[in-house]
């Protein structure tokens, strides 16, 4: 056997040993966390990004001493994961971007009912009627526009106006985005299925452009690629953070137009962790003034707890006009998907 081959085999053996040592410590650390039912460490599945949720969770650990193990991922994928795990899920708290995944899990009876005291912290429209999930932070659907391409007089009175000829080829939407789908679901219930269908078909006929995501729309509006974009309000903040001189402004449809829908990110406790004290404590913390302040500061989202201070430069929740809509009615997602797919807007 040549010296070189011996060295190569040696290298393979060393790396194998290293890898298994590495795998070993990884699995031993995870065994200790999976035995976390004793309350020493709380398992959280977070569909909200570490960049934003991390600080709030760190503040919670600092305050209560409860260690938190977080699995970050896409809201929907984590919802599917809990759905697949069923009653074996290690998740003790599940955070999602929107009510959609919660409604999905609730229908499969995989969520526990939260304590009334926790639910009562937020207005009734921002939580599940059966008490299985609660809103944590709020966001509003808005229209952003490029000020080089749009004069203030051109702005539409209602989201329904966007199918008119003067907006032809100028509007960006993100049809596969959960917030857009929630907005369409709400519109169906607020304005009727036929009107919603006509609106979606009208958008297609009017050459509205479909984008993959809200931030792609925000970038495209900032670049001047397209004049208007239907997005969540905080994408405007993101544009301005990236480039304070970006020619972009935010517009809220007046009154109770469905285009101004107010949506929430959500928290729930999966069924196997029902009544877990640490899990409840975490959700209570996120709904406390201190917890809410972290989200407001990090993400420019609206607090959903009355009386918590709003981020600078934004109207307070009480000043905001939006349709009064019960978010736990966001159930018929299949119907919404059919409407969106049927319109052929793609995305």
């Amino acid at each position: 056997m040549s010296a070189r081959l011996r060295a190569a085999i040696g290298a393979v053996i060393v790396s194998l040993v290293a890898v298994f040592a590495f795998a070993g410590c990884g699995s031993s650390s995870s065994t200790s966390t999976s035995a976390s039912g004793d309350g020493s460490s709380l398992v959280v599945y977070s569909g909200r990004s570490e960049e934003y949720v991390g600080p709030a969770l760190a503040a919670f650990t600092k305050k209560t001493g409860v260690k938190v193990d977080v699995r970050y991922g896409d809201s929907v994928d984590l919802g599917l994961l809990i759905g697949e795990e069923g009653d074996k899920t290690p998740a003790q708290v599940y955070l999602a971007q929107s009510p959609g995944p919660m409604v999905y899990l609730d229908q499969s009876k995989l969520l526990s009912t939260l304590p009334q005291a926790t639910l009562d912290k937020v207005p009734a429209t921002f939580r599940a009627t059966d008490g299985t999930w609660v809103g944590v932070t709020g966001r509003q659907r808005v229209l952003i526009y490029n000020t080089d391409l749009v004069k203030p007089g051109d702005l539409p009175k209602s989201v329904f106006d966007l199918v008119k000829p003067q907006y032809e080829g100028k509007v960006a939407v993100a049809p596969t985005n959960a917030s857009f789908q929630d907005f369409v679901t709400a519109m169906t219930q607020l304005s009727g299925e036929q009107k919603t269908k006509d609106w979606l078909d009208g958008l297609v006929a009017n050459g509205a452009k479909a984008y993959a995501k809200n931030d792609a729309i925000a970038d495209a509006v900032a670049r001047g690629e397209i004049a208007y974009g239907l997005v969540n309000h905080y994408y405007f903040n993101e544009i301005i953070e990236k480039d304070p001189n970006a020619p972009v402004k935010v517009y809220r449809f007046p009154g109770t137009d469905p285009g101004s829908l107010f949506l929430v990110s959500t928290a729930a406790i999966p069924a196997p962790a029902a009544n877990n004290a640490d899990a409840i404590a975490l959700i209570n913390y996120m709904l406390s003034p201190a917890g809410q302040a972290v989200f407001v500061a990090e993400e420019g989202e609206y607090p959903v707890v009355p009386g918590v201070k709003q981020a600078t430069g934004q109207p307070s929740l009480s000043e905001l006009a939006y349709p009064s809509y019960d978010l736990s009615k966001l159930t018929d997602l299949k119907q919404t998907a059919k409407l969106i797919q049927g319109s052929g807007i793609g995305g």
Partner: protein
Amino acid sequence: MSTTALAVVLAVPFALPFIYLIVRNAGDLSGLWAALTDGDTIAPAFRSLLLGTSVAITAGILGTGAAWMVARTDLWGRRSWALLLCLPLVMPSFVGAVALIAAFSPGGLLSQLLGNSVPLPSVSGFWGAYGVLTLLTYPYVFLPVMARLRTMPPATEESARLLGRRPFAVFLTVVVPQARAAIAAGALLVFLYVISDFGAVQLLRYDTLTRMIYANRLLDPSVSVALSLVLGVMAVAVVAFERRASRVGLRETQRLRTPLTVPLGRLKALAITLLGLLVTLSLIVPIGVLLFWAIRGAVQGNDRSNSVINDPSLILGPLGSTAGVSIATAIVAVLVVLPIAYRTVRRPGRLGEAIAGTVVGGFALPGLVTALAFVFWTLNSPGPVGALYQTLPLLILAYLVHHGALALGATQTAVAAIPPRLEDAARSLGSNRARRFTSVEWPLMWPGIAAGAGLVLLSTMKELPATLLLSPPGFSTLATRVWSAAEVALYEDAAVYALVLVALSAILTWFLVVRPALRSWDRVASVQDETQPEPVPVPAEPVAG
């Protein structure tokens, strides 16, 4: 244990995602029926096929041409080219897509740089997805074909050149036919990657089957599960077709001598321009965009304490995890795939084809499906297996199943490159099995195996869905950090992590793939010259991925 039994046992995990899909569909046959008969399924399925085929053909041409220039010509800096041409593979497709959108969009970075008058190619729909995916996937062809060309006998090529054929004609009429199996295997990987890709088609808005799978996964899970099965069946059919097609008329003749080096002469400048253009579009443009974001972010600064811009030490954890799991997966993949390659190459037949087809087909399922399949199998298994849930061994198993196909094609090519005659010679000289393997077979196979391991390594480094769902709690890789930051439009953080990912992949590829491969190529030459002085053509078994 016989090789057959071993190969079957090793192939079992690869079948698990398919069985999971069948189990899931069996629970709701009406959903499967609805999805199959719905006209809305036909168009996306057709678009998946169209995109997969177009990208596979283009990447096949680019990858083969580049591999020939690097492996067989007197180009300058061949090792550097070999490295640079591998790296686009590590770019997660959503990063590549975001970077190219940022560069090429109207009002984007290039039009700011060049002025608005310069026409730029469209970056959406079919052409956008086609361009981005071609640039990110040609290394699936480049790497194995380069390995194959280095071990390919020069006899016919020499004759053709002596008879006065020009280098390009020799390439087309002699080199391509001999490397056909490797090219076809690589192009098949490209096809399977493209039909399972979600990141690029989503951002570039091209409605393929995967987009429907993702769009429906919560709204109507039965549709998603049914469409995933359709995708899997489509993949298996294409794999079977490819194996049949590349079998016809394929007789790779072997002669063992130093591979020929073709002097390019005046064409050298052209070759360098072409390779330079490819590397620029596939690597330098995306890296340029990432650098732009990172530098702008660093200059502007931010007040987030968990930003990597403010605390560079945040990189260390993900860096270690990424290197650890990807190296582990590459090694495990070689160990698992090698017996399968031996069995399927040495004893071709229906069983071998079924085993290889199972391994390769797994690559076409979206990572999310593979991940959920392993959730299902682990949690529904008794004690010791169930305890593996969300641990590193399970994560590596999922990586292996998802990426095993990448190692198999190259390893099969490598096994087929060992002429039985050489083994007979070693046996007659009294070498036992172990010694024949270490002194004769391994040195000959190593370039191919290194290429396969390299593909697994680079693909594992950027893997996302399985990592997010199956890793131990609190585990993050560079790819998950890129994704997480990009999700909330913190491009400066995403860019820093992505650049570190590219740098890490460059280092690992250099030390684990390019350098050993080039070194052992020289060894191969000397081993071959020593062991078989007489040039005798030996028919080898057909090889296919």
